């Protein structure tokens, strides 16, 4: 049996985070590598332009590993991230 702890909720504002593969700040600063990034579409004979808005998409891939340290929130130049513990846990 694996021990499971409730982890913080991480929200990504994708209106603000549009080119995550070019920016990559949160992806590289997170101590436990919680985030993941992929191209939204893989097109035959074409390499995806990482500067084209929406061509890559950031996602929370391993939320169970988030400690709530907030380093990603602090590093994000677009203020696109929020990290918060669900209130019922804090009470």
């Amino acid at each position: 049996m694996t021990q499971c702890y409730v982890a913080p909720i991480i929200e990504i504002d994708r209106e603000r985070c549009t080119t995550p593969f070019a920016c990559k700040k949160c992806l590289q600063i997170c101590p436990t590598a919680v985030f993941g990034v992929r191209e939204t579409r893989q097109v035959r004979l074409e390499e995806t332009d990482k500067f084209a808005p929406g061509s890559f998409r950031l996602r929370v891939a391993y939320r169970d590993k988030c400690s709530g340290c907030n380093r990603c929130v602090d590093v994000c130049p677009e203020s696109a991230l929020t990290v918060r513990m669900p209130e019922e846990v804090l009470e």
Partner: protein
Amino acid sequence: MCRMCDSLGGTAEQPWYKNPKNFSNRMYKLREPGKGPQMAAGGNAEPDAGDQRASPFAQAVEAKANGDADTFNKIISDMNARASLRPGCQVVPLHEVLDVLDLGMPVAAMQCICRKETRACEECSLKEYTGLGLGTGMLKWERWPERYRGKVEFLSSKQAKEFVEYWDKKGFMHMLMQEGGDFIGGMCNCDYPDCLPIRQRIDYGLTAQLLKSEYVCFVDWEKCNGCGDCLGRCDFNALKYEATMEKAHIDQFQCFGCGLCETACPRNAIEYRDRKKISGLARVW
């Protein structure tokens, strides 16, 4: 014998990855009439966890993050039961990688897609590439430039060996990748936490994603002087300094037999033992 050898023509003397048949892949079979080209795996962004279309793995991670151990354990054990019919990747120590590279020609250096996904690393030239694509399938890499971002570089047998030795020194362990279960598609140089198979096994208990190597490593305490050069090389939480004995310590059940500690030891104090010949470890894959 592990499941890989059962299904892929390995024997007690020769593991599956030394059987040349597994490198002569079937990627060039003719397409069935009327069938169009297939989308490459991972072509579309994965839906967020919580989305109904999320993969079982993403749902397991979400359950874990919600503190729901029952759901988490159920999904993982279902995934393990399904995957047990189908081989995944296997750890292979440096000396055996060097043996099998010739079987996998043509060999091309390429970006690692796990590092691309987890740390947004961009490997765009031979100096940066960390992966090797093996076999004739590599000859059609140009169809999918996104999959092979920054192109690929075909290597001679000698260059390929130097390539793997270089990354071994840097601290990446090696694994052979089964693609689709019937041929060896790649040789990766990996570490935790960016490598998806290592992570899925270590953090989530998906055993079939990554099998241990045919070996397990032991420290010869006559030769080890406790210098600590090997420490920090292990991706599997198997290696530590045992202060009581003033020697390096390997947990036999945690050890994946990757040999990274062995290649770092200046005193040859670490030895490989055949996992299949040690009664308590022969079934620990």
